[in-house]
């Protein structure tokens, strides 16, 4: 599979945008300028950027909380995300929700419900709708390694495979679920083995290599789009920060982090682009400057944005409110 130069550069751009956005959120968190906690995908950005970029406009993403790349790629701007993190009215959810609990149907992104793997059945349902309506759209649903232990992982995968639905399940295997290592999470060696239980074809990819993730996603999407049913992609990577920014992750062996630091997805991509003479250092620096500017603007936008009104709290519980209810 050949990837256009332009696409490779966009992948690089989104890797950088994701990293810089989340790094900035981390700083702001430590400065006390974020409302609540901060979760980042640091070190694993290639997963969400890779599978997110492979989606077509009308497809649906059913993400989890380390999928910042997906949000950005689909069109949820850094501005809105930064405002979201600060609990502002201009945030993705107008202050109703926080941080990575983002969704926007205008961009084909399902909201992430905290409850891990809930989006596997939910994504399956969108794929079911596409199948019923005979539309050539697909769904990509993602969860973490820990999320694969949940019943909803099983029920979503099983339903999708029984009906051969157009969905691709992604797993960000960053080796830890909060403090829990894979060893206590499951007895199998590769999470891809879970897919055997559903006769779902699976692939293991280097989750730090955005090109690999992107290619695997493209192939799987293609199969799904053409009636071939679901696939499962395990992206092997490593969570480089704590579970959230308040967690120092002392339980992770330092050597493991050292080892994975060398495989950083951005470094990996820079090397790939330069070694294959797709882009030079200057061009990449140019992209980085653009990203920096975008993040600065996003922060300024968020800072200047107003907070929501307290009365907003009562709005939006129902899509079809019952008039009589307002009487009292």
């Amino acid at each position, binding site marked *: 599979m050949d990837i256009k130069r332009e696409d490779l550069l966009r992948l690089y751009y989104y890797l950088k945008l994701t990293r810089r956005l989340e790094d900035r959120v981390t700083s702001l968190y430590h400065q006390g300028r974020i409302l609540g906690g901060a979760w980042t995908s640091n070190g694993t950005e290639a997963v969400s950027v890779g599978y997110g970029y492979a989606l077509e406009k009308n497809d649906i993403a059913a993400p989890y909380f380390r999928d910042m790349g997906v949000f950005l790629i689909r069109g949820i701007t850094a501005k809105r995300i930064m405002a979201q993190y600060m609990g502002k009215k201009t945030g993705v959810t107008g202050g109703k929700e926080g941080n990575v609990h983002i969704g926007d149907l205008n961009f084909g992104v399902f909201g992430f419900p905290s409850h891990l793997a809930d989006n596997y059945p939910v994504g399956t349902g969108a794929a079911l709708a596409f199948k019923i309506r005979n539309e050539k759209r697909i769904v990509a649903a993602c969860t973490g390694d820990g999320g694969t232990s949940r019943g909803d992982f099983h029920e979503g995968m099983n339903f999708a495979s029984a009906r051969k639905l157009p969905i691709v399940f992604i797993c960000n295997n960053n080796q830890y679920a909060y403090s829990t290592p894979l060893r206590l999470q499951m007895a199998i060696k590769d999470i891809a083995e879970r897919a055997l239980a559903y006769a779902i074809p699976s692939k293991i990819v280097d989750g730090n290599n955005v090109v690999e993730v992107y290619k695997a996603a493209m192939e799987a999407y293609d199969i799904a789009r053409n009636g071939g049913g679901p696939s499962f992609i395990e992206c092997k990577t490593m969570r480089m920060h704590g579970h959230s920014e308040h967690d120092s992750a002392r339980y992770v062996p330092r050597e493991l982090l050292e080892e994975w630091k060398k495989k950083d997805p951005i470094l990996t991509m820079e090397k790939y682009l330069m070694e294959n003479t797709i882009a030079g250092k200057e061009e990449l620096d140019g992209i980085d400057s653009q990203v920096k500017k975008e993040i600065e603007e996003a922060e300024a936008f968020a800072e200047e944005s107003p907070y929501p009104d307290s009365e907003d709290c009562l709005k939006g519980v129902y*899509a079809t409110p019952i008039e009589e209810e307002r009487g009292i």
Partner: protein
Amino acid sequence: MKEITYLEAIKEAMDEEMARDPGVFVLGEDVGVYGGAFRATEGFYEKYGEWRVLDTPLSESGFTGAAIGAALVGMRPIVEMQFADFISCAFDQLVNVAAKNHYRWGAATPIVVRAPYGGNIHGGAFHSQCIEGFFFNVPGLKIIAPSTAYDAKGLLKAAIRDNDPVIYCEHKYLYRRIKDSIPDEDYIVPIGKARIAREGNDVSVITYGAMVHTALETAQLLEENGVSCEIVDLRTILPLDKKSILGSVKKTSKVVVLHEQTKTGGVGAEVSALLSEYCFDFLDGPILRVAAPDTPVPYSAQMEEAFIPQTKDVVAAVEKVMRY
């Protein structure tokens, strides 16, 4: 006009909505070839095909989650729980995904979950539960519970057209036991509006579901003693129709709240609390509740009869408030 049973009303509502709107489809266990454990979808598979009448794997969370996802991209799924009791397995998807989507990120989730509920059928603890209590403290959901064939049809149609997640509590005991004359034309019964099932002046009996019939029996018996009962059939449990509840009690000043659900934390508690809060000056006596005792549903006929509120229990309660 034609006479149909409560079950037929449910079936007709789905059938008509499926014919009207290609986005409506049914999924659940055995709803396809078999036509559903209670036959509510009999013939649908033949009529609408295997992609609109879907036999799912045995996985309530999975297929309820799938219904939510389908709804998010424009479909109007009807989920059939084989028995309401199994809705416990889909609790997380309903409470945390469906109920909160619109508030959290502005996405409407138009699903209907049909929950065949209630006792009196010797089903025991796992085939007789009233499940409205599981969801009654969950903003974002709507809960409805028709007591007549007319309402069963009209409310189900309204639920299917509604843009919010609706839990439709259909009482198994009523399926084949009651009938109504139903108009030939399309109609809906609006969600959120109670119904005065019988007008009266002395005491309000506020209830819903199968207990409406117990209340009607009570009213008939008491009429002979010169007591005039007004029966309020809630129809929608969440959100409650406060106006109708308060309106009736402002007239009668005496209240008995009746439900088959167990007493503690039941819908009756909320009805009672609303009255004490907004209607206290009109109250002419204590607000009595007649409800199942706080136990799981027992199996044997003797115990089940003691468990489910009977007409004599309601008569006793009404007589007690009337003595006030």
